[in-house]
């Protein structure tokens, strides 16, 4: 049972690492979207009015 719990704990650690990586990637993705949004807004405001 102790060995089983060790195996389960290691699996849990692996899953937690994977999800943490996903959260980090999500943060990077959000930053990218926000950055692009900011750039296109800046480009729109720089266009001369027709």
């Amino acid at each position, binding site marked *: 049972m102790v060995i089983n*719990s060790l195996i389960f704990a290691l699996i849990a650690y692996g899953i937690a690492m994977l999800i943490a990586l996903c*959260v980090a990637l999500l943060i990077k993705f*959000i930053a990218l979207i926000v950055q692009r949004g900011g750039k296109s807004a800046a480009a729109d405001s720089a266009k001369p009015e027709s």
Partner: protein
Amino acid sequence: MLVLELFQGIYTFFLTEPAIAFARLGLIALGFLFVFLSYKKILEPLIMLPLGIGMIAVNGGLMVMEAETMALGNLFINPLAGNVEEVMYYLQIDFLQPVYTFTFSNGLIACLVFMGIGAITDIDILLAKPYMSLFLAICAELGTIVTLPIAMAMGLPPNEAASIALVGGADGPMVLYGSIMLARDLFVPITVVAYVYLGVCYAGYPFLVRIIPRRLRAIEMDWRTIPQVSSGAKFAFAVLTCGFLCVLFPVAAPLFASFFVGLAIKEAGVLRFIEFLSGPLLYGATFFLGFTLGALLGVDIILDPKVLLLLVLGIIALTLSGLGGITGGLIYSKITKEPFNPLIGIAAVSCVPTTAKVAQKCAAAVNKKAMILPFAMGPCVAGVITTAIITGIYISGFRAGGVFFRLFGG
């Protein structure tokens, strides 16, 4: 003796066995010690002061409830009230029973505290440096992982082992929620062990971090490396991560939802709600959490032989998590090109904001110019997220009929 019956708190000392009477006296003394150490700010006064007073009152205020049967009890809480009739009876008798029944036994109090924590949490560094923050947070979960097999090797059943292992996450509300879900019978001693040790962390971790060489502890961080994060990005993070984690772990969804709703409200700038969550709600919930836990610390709970085991496992869990965080800090300082103070690793043990303050205090002790607190908040908040993830995995794994039992039987 008849005169003594006027003073039931004293009278009941003579009605119980000497061992129980001495244990009561010991708990009253411990309550006084907690109050004194809280007053001196050695222990966290927000929790430990009401907890200490609750302990003194509940152990002092033991009385004869029924003259015929000489049944002893108090007018605080009866956590063992099981069926509806019993609960209804005690709701009308015990003054903290409504708080316990409606906010403790369903985990609401942990969620209320989490809403408040979300509303005061600064996630700038987490979003600016997500890899650093989450890497350190994962390292600082070492105690949560390693304590599980240790606890089982020491004879605890899987669900109780998982509950006490969560102390390694150093997150009081999370331990409370996890232990209610996994080991309802032991949730009071486990939560109290967690909160007592979280208070002790503030005094103990500065000794642990001395394993980091002094020159590394004195490293100054470069503020110019922190990119600006817009509040729109922070709001989007709160909402999307909440949805993502709730889909993965519905069993811990109340915790995720509570934390991220506080965060989302903060980033949306809804001032009235921010004031409510970060003031009356957070401190009201924290006060009743401490006071009710203290009132639950009656002699019958503490005399459970498992409590000593929980005390040992709790300190193992927190020490291992601290060492994991420090190791993570040292590894990160080796692999990054920017100057990095490895003390930040200890902040990843997610006791917001205590461990971040510990990191800053230890850095300032060796170099007054070293300002690492803002950097330390990133791993500290990331630690809340990783602890919630592991709590979700443990609840899914170790509740009745959970994944662990289906994988390995038993």
